[in-house]
């Protein structure tokens, strides 16, 4: 998916909670590319414009798993804390 598409998708899926402006999107994409979690390639968009597309790499997949697990733990912990207090 290309950069614009990613931010659109995030906005769509989270029901408008997270709107990622280009000013945050691009730095984040470039950081992730540097860490090797996503790979980039140039391609043609829906309306035949050239755009930079990003794909998740294997390391990125692992990172995603790890982050997901971590997030899961944190939310469970918070939920527990709230419940018992």
């Amino acid at each position, binding site marked *: 998916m*290309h*950069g*614009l598409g990613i931010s659109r998708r995030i906005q769509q899926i989270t029901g408008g909670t997270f709107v990622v*402006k*280009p*000013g945050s999107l*691009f*730095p984040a994409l*470039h*950081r992730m590319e*540097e*860490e090797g979690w996503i790979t980039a390639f*140039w391609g043609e*968009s829906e*309306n035949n*414009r*050239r*755009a*930079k597309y990003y794909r998740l790499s294997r390391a990125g997949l692992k*990172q995603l798993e*790890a982050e997901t697990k971590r997030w899961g733990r944190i939310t469970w912990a918070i939920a527990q804390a709230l419940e018992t207090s």
Partner: protein
Amino acid sequence: MFFTRRVDADLEQEVHSHLEILTEEKMRAGMPAAEARRAARIELGGIEQVKEQVREERMGNWLHSVLSDCRYGLCQLRKNPGTTAVMIFTLALAIGASTAIFSVVYGVLLRPLPYADANRIMAVFEVTSKGRPSRLADPNFDEFRDQNRSFGAIAKYDENVRSVSGGAQPARAMVAQVSPEFLGVFGVYPILGRNFSDGDGKQGAAPTAVVSYGYWRQNFRATVDLSQAHLKIDGAEYSVIGVLPDGFRFPADADLWLAADLHGEGHSRTSHNYNAVGRLRDGVTVQQANRDISAIARRIHDAASEQGDYLLKDAMVLPLQDAITREARLPLLVLLGAVGFLLLVACANVVNLLLAQASVRERELAIRSALGAGRGRLIRQFLTEAFLLSSVGGGLGVLGAFWGVAGLLALAPENLPRIESVSINIPVLVFALVLSSAVAAGLGAFTAVRATAGDLRKSLAEGGGGDARSQRSQRVGQGIVGAQIAITLVLGVGAGLLGRSLLKVLDVNPGFRVDKIVTMDVSLPWAEDPKAKARQAIFYANLMERLKQIPGVRRVGAASALPMAEGGLADGMFLVMTQNEIPTSLDDLGALMRPQERTGIADFCAATDGYFQALRIPLLRGRIFEESDDANSPHVAVISESLARERWPNQNPIGQTIEFGNMDGDLRLLTIVGIVGDTHEYSLDTPARPTVYVNLLQRPSPAVTVTMLSDADTQSVTAAARGILQGLDSEIPVRFQTFSQVYSASLRPRRFNVILIGFFGIVALLLATAGVFGAMAYAVNRRTREIGVRVALGASTGHVLRMVLGQGLRTICVGVATGIIGSLALTRTVESLLFGVTANDPLTFGGVTLFLVGAALVACYVPARRATKVDPLVALRHE
């Protein structure tokens, strides 16, 4: 890492394409083109800003992470100030010592000579029948010069100390006699006045001299007008024709250069009067020059009328730098190797300390890893810390090296060539920088790889590291200590062998006494005709008489050179002949020199009888010189014991007459009247040379050293003697020393090596002992739980001790074994530096091994004892 132009362009395209897509979307939604564009731009938030943000992110990221590594590293090091200080000190010591030694190696061996294209300057030698290089004889040099095809310029030179007056005051100066092309070989030309011309070097030409810059400033007050500048050397007037640029003083710190051959050239092909240098022609290689000169030499050998051992057999060409530094090369490289070993031992200590620290930080590393730091990032952390340590240690080390180099220069033997080019200069600093970086990289990488090996997250869960990991890191630690012990053993053996050699050399009986002797170097002008020589003899006789009157002086003597002093005696071939065979001229004598039963080889020395008494050289047979041996009676000589033994094995040499006039120009025969004990002329570790001593009062030599054996203190004797000499002739420059100074100067090269390698050995020993101690303490710490369990289960103190020590002993044994094998292999390289001990001397090996094992055992014992005091309850709770 940094923002390259390509990435920038890429980003530019990406942002633009984003903008395009946005704009099109809006247009499809119905906005007019211009408005759509504007809205898209607003939504994007400004192209340049976006690009800038990405850029900052990238750069900031990198810089940020490096800085945070540094900050983190500093914090870490500050947490354990003691350990950090120890590590920095150890590194400073090792890097400083390496830098100091390297600066000497660089200055002496590596730095190019300070002349233009210095690698084209060659030294030319004759090769003797025994294959050793030697100086050149005049006619041989002439043929090399005329027939060679390899040299653009070739020149001969010789140097000695002469008395020079006409400058500020009469003084002794180093004077070189050179052929006219000499300065051309070096590419050096006078900054004032002119160079030698061909005419200056011919027999009978007006004597001319060129002076050094320093001499010109000191004695001629830097005058620009040289027409009034004159010098009196050996009674002849020389006009100064040129001044050389500052810094040129080849050979041997010369201050004056005279044109050679003013008294004509020698004809003998066996009097090796000169050294030679030449500058290769463009395109000619050293091998070609060698073949060229060698061919000429062999032609001379085959055609010469003089034959025998003193005639050249071959000739060789060697780059001048190699020729000058040849003898110093091995000792300096050995020193470099030794300091390299010290560096390894020091680094091993630091590595072990870092590893120990790393194992304590396991938890922290695990957490960082879980938070997303890749292994590369962690490795970078360790590298950063190692670089911090190494740069501080290296910086301190370089500062220390300044002081160290000064010490080295003070300690160094006087005959260390090119000592003036030793200093801490840019190449040396570059070396220090590279060394520090290499050390940092090595330490950091090693520590990082060891510390991040294995699954870090496991250690989080198990709270402190699994047993398998700790066992492996212990083994690594023990391995490092074992290596330290091995290297220290090699160093110790080296130091031991050299030290024993020094002791053996000191044990050698020099053949003379050394203490309580004041020496006085006197040089008179060179005299050829018999009347002048007679005057010199009277002068010496007077001088001896008056010196004997000085209160406290018991014996006074003189000789053309003292044993072990710089310079030494000339040697040559003498002939046994009878009265009616005396040749009438020196050239005729040359023709008679053929290897037969009638020749012999010996050193030639002119001495008085007081000399033998002052130095306590024993008289073995016959007599020494007496009052009756004066200018009108037959010339007499005494010979050394080894000469008597070699040349006249079953005869009595006393009464034999020999001809030795080729040495001092006096053709009268010498009658042997006595045999005296051997003396070590050159050094204690070369055998005594056969010597012929002639009577100084019959055959005076222009330069003598007067020896005074006295009970009074040196100062008063010196003052009195100086007064007496000036009373006799105020123009004669003089130099005073004590014989023990001269004697110990000859031992300096050996002492230098022993002191330095001994120092490295001791420091390595201390470091290795500390390493053993540290590793042992660490191992005990790791096994605290296990020890607690055992004690709780009933193990005795002794059992615990044995268990702990056993581990240490294994390491020590492996280390020692490796060290012994290494020493056996390596000591062969220093064999030529040894004296009186073999390279595999069992006493040295055994002694050093025992000492090292002892020190290591003591280092093990202390932590082991602490292990026995472990309280099981505390231990079991220990994590």
